[in-house]
């Protein structure tokens, strides 16, 4: 049970990171690889705030994520959009472009903050764990669980109950149609990039609480988002959530049975199984071939 609980905790973070990734993918239909490194950059901003200002932790996470949200918006407006919309670049071109940008930002981060692993702690005094029904959970893990839970609920409410949330779902469903009903699609995509990037930074901050973050983790994070998205069904918000959870639990089982060095192997084995037997994922929306 403890392995499953640990899996749910890490899976919750994967779910969160996959949710943001999927939200952006649904709207622009290309793999936004830069997403992973923006998440990592959020942790470096958070660490900078922690060392400089000593404000409440939640406020600093919010501010760092807000900044990442703005950078995410800028990345669409001035980096992707000129190619994707004006030049009508293919999704493959956008993927390569985005991957290149990830490498550049990753190296810039290493240049400024060095290539070390940084972990974040809320307070040095609260490190001890809690016991529930024979299961143990640390304070950081509790924060991760609660943050993930609240974020998913807020996102679900936003997408399901608000006018702008509905517009985001509409763009993901049928972008051509949204233009004909008078929606300013670029405005909606900017909102999507803000929310997605904001969520990526929150999830990377949660990872920093648990295992720490280094510049090269950007690629790892976006890969996890992609795997969780494919498992859940690319383009599906609910799928991303369940895909993330399943990935987290499977990885933890892998670590328990085969050792920590098998974590990535377990993740990619799960991906391969899905690609072979259920390529459309748990919650089918778009076939991978499309």
């Amino acid at each position, binding site marked *: 049970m403890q392995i499953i609980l640990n899996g749910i905790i890490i899976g919750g973070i994967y779910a969160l990171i996959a949710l943001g990734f999927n939200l952006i993918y649904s709207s622009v239909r290309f793999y936004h690889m830069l997403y992973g490194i923006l998440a990592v950059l959020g942790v470096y901003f958070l660490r900078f705030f922690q060392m400089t200002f000593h404000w409440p932790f939640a406020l600093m996470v919010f501010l760092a994520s807000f900044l990442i949200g703005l950078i995410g918006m800028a990345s669409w407006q001035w980096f992707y959009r000129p190619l994707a919309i004006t030049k009508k670049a293919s999704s493959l071109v956008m993927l390569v472009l985005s991957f290149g940008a990830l490498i550049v930002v990753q190296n810039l981060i290493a240049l400024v903050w060095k290539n070390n692993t940084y972990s974040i702690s809320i307070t040095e005094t609260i490190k001890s764990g809690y016991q529930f029904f024979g299961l143990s959970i640390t304070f950081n893990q509790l924060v991760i669980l609660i943050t993930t839970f609240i974020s998913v609920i807020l996102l679900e409410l936003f997408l399901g109950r608000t006018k702008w949330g509905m517009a985001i779902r509409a763009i993901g*469903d049928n972008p051509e*149609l949204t233009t*004909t009903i008078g929606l300013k699609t670029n405005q909606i995509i900017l909102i999507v990039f803000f929310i997605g990037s904001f969520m990526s930074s929150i999830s990377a901050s949660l990872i920093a609480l648990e295992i720490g973050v280094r510049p090269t983790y950007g690629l790892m994070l976006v890969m996890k988002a992609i795997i969780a998205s494919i498992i859940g069904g690319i383009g599906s918000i609910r799928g991303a959530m369940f895909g993330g959870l399943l990935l987290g639990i499977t990885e933890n089982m892998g670590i328990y049975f085969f050792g920590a060095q098998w974590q990535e192997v377990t993740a990619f084995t799960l991906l391969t199984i899905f690609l072979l037997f259920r390529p459309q994922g748990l919650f089918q929306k778009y076939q991978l071939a499309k």
Partner: protein
Amino acid sequence: MSQSLLQVRGLSVQFGHNKIIHGVDFEVRDGEILILMGPNGAGKTVLLKAIFGLFEKLSGTVEFDGKIIHPSPVAMVKAGMSFVGQGKRVFSSMTIEENLRMGAFLWTDKKMINQRIDELVDFFPILKKKFRTLAYNMSGGEQQILSLARALMMNPKLLICDEPSIGLAPKIVQQVFEKIEEVNKVFGTSIVIVEHNLKSLLKVAHRGYIIAQGKMVMEGSVETLADSKNLEKVFFGELV
């Protein structure tokens, strides 16, 4: 019925070096159902999309409801024009209710939106029955009705339907056209229909244009246009 609602003068559209529409004049009168027909590749869809602002025009003017407008979907929707395109016509992962709400995205008054939804589900009873169903689970004909209803949400003065019969069984096509005629009569909406399926529209449409190779080649009553000799000439390229 004689007052002009939409006046298009000298409209040209070019993609790269290819001119698709060559200085076309086009008029829709208040309260009429107008059919735009022509062979495949004649430029029907391009013309209507350029009028709606989905394609950039090269030259020409678009005057709608007495005002010259630079076409853009947002400007056209605000001015009172609605467009039902070909292909995937609905938001399939959303419920009928959500699809209808999306049709009035530019409206801010929730009461007005709810009132309009009530009016439209009364007008299209099939939508009432399946109100909370995902559009994905509807048949092709039902989806077409939903797309019509969504396009009517903001009570447009002009409704443009691009090949509404595409992919539908003949019996369903007849029902869709009957509904389009009813929309025209009940709401007074002017309607432009791009259609190959002329026979189904004979009883419905008031006037029509024939377009071929990006040029308007005929204008007149539906009966005149439906004359088999004229149609043959258009489809064999003799009228261009």
